[in-house]
């Protein structure tokens, strides 16, 4: 390798090491932080690889109930999750939805889902969105009789204008 390639090699792994070690949190230099983030967003080589770490997040379930103008019962909008990979994608979406427990982020996702339902069926003018959280009890609690509970985590209704 010539000197340029060697330098690029060192910079590349320096970026990776700085990110993996969380040293970037100590760097209070916006241009450097921006460069590290930009590099990460293109190469995906310098990022935290802590999947399911340090904790395992809860499981979520999405319910989309669409209503027409005269409809009071509504119908469930089913998302095709016939195989595990597609189900994991829906769960990943719900993990991104709940990330940081930000109400504004959750509302944004909900509006997006509501719009999806309305675009798929032009007669739909109202969508009830509910996200349920499956809470897994600790082993000790499970042994004492506690079971996985399904609790309402978020609910909203999106109306067509």
């Amino acid at each position, binding site marked *: 390798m010539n000197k340029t390639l060697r330098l690029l090699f060192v910079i590349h792994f320096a970026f990776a090491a700085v990110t993996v070690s969380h040293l970037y949190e100590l760097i209070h230099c916006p241009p450097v932080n921006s460069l590290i983030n930009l590099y990460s967003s293109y190469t995906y*080589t310098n990022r935290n690889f*802590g999947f399911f770490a340090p904790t395992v997040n809860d499981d979520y379930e999405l319910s989309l109930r669409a209503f027409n103008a005269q409809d009071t019962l509504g119908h469930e909008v089913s*998302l095709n999750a016939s195989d595990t990979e597609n189900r994991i994608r829906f769960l990943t979406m719900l993990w991104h939805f709940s990330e940081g427990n930000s109400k504004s982020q959750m509302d944004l996702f909900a509006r997006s*889902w509501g719009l*999806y339902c309305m675009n798929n069926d032009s007669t739909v003018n109202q969508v009830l969105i509910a996200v349920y959280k499956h809470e897994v009890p600790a*082993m000790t609690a499970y042994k004492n009789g506690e079971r*996985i509970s399904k609790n309402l985590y978020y609910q909203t209704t999106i109306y067509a204008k």
Partner: protein
Amino acid sequence: MFKFIEVVKPTYPLLFYRTGLALICIGKFAVLYHNYLIFYGQYGLIQWSISKVNAYPYAPHLGDFSIFLGRIFQLSMDDASQLIMKVFFCSSLFLFFGLFTRLSTILCFVLHLAFINTGSGIIYGVEVFTQLALFYALFFPLNTTYSADIALGLSRYKRKSLGAGIAIRLIQFQMCLVYLSSGIEKCLGRQWLNGEAIWRTLMMPIFKTYDFSWMAWYPVVPFLIGIFVLIVEIGYVVFMWKKNIRVWWLAMIIALHLGIGIFMGMWFFATVMIFLSVFAFGDDVLRDILKGRAKEVSWLKQG
């Protein structure tokens, strides 16, 4: 340090890398094909207007490409977006056969990044490591072994090369960083140290392929599995460089990811991780095994 990196190695692992990566790209979209517009469409579950705002200003996005193609070919946004998927599929196929390899790799890299930025709401480890592998593929001499480019005279066959050696070293370093990061991040919480992480994962309704509720009465089992995961991940950075030990460590890493595939159904993630480790250390492990067998044979002959 660079003497360690700049080594000549056989090029057959590059054939594995090229074909394996192409199959991963093809397979991923084959599985998501029926939900393509739901995940990546303009009015899918996460609309383009939202995913575009979350992406970097000049980052590739399906919306930009679709608008461009839509204007040229008079297509709707959904049709243009599906055309891009077909282009990605064709690029992956070209990559598999090593045809116009550099161009097809660049196309796969850019389009896969566009898919990530568009479907940012649904990405997880599979996308991260596929994109990582595609980034490195941009620089690897992937067409120097059993490729259509060689047949067309666009490249020359090389049995061994410095490029192959550097490529393998790059992925070796990257995978060491990945597993070290992963292991240390897990140690920062209590769940991986007391078995709760394994318990929670196996009991989550979405991952529940088998009934593991009996673990609540035998907490030592998830505890030991959790510690095994931590040891294998953190030990990766040390033991994958030790001759004769790395064959067992590679086997343990493969077993770990096979476990993720079997018990969590995350087969694509398992495949990508096994693929990267086998590429990185497979040749070294194979040499260890062959040397070991040669020693055995000579010992038997002497006996």
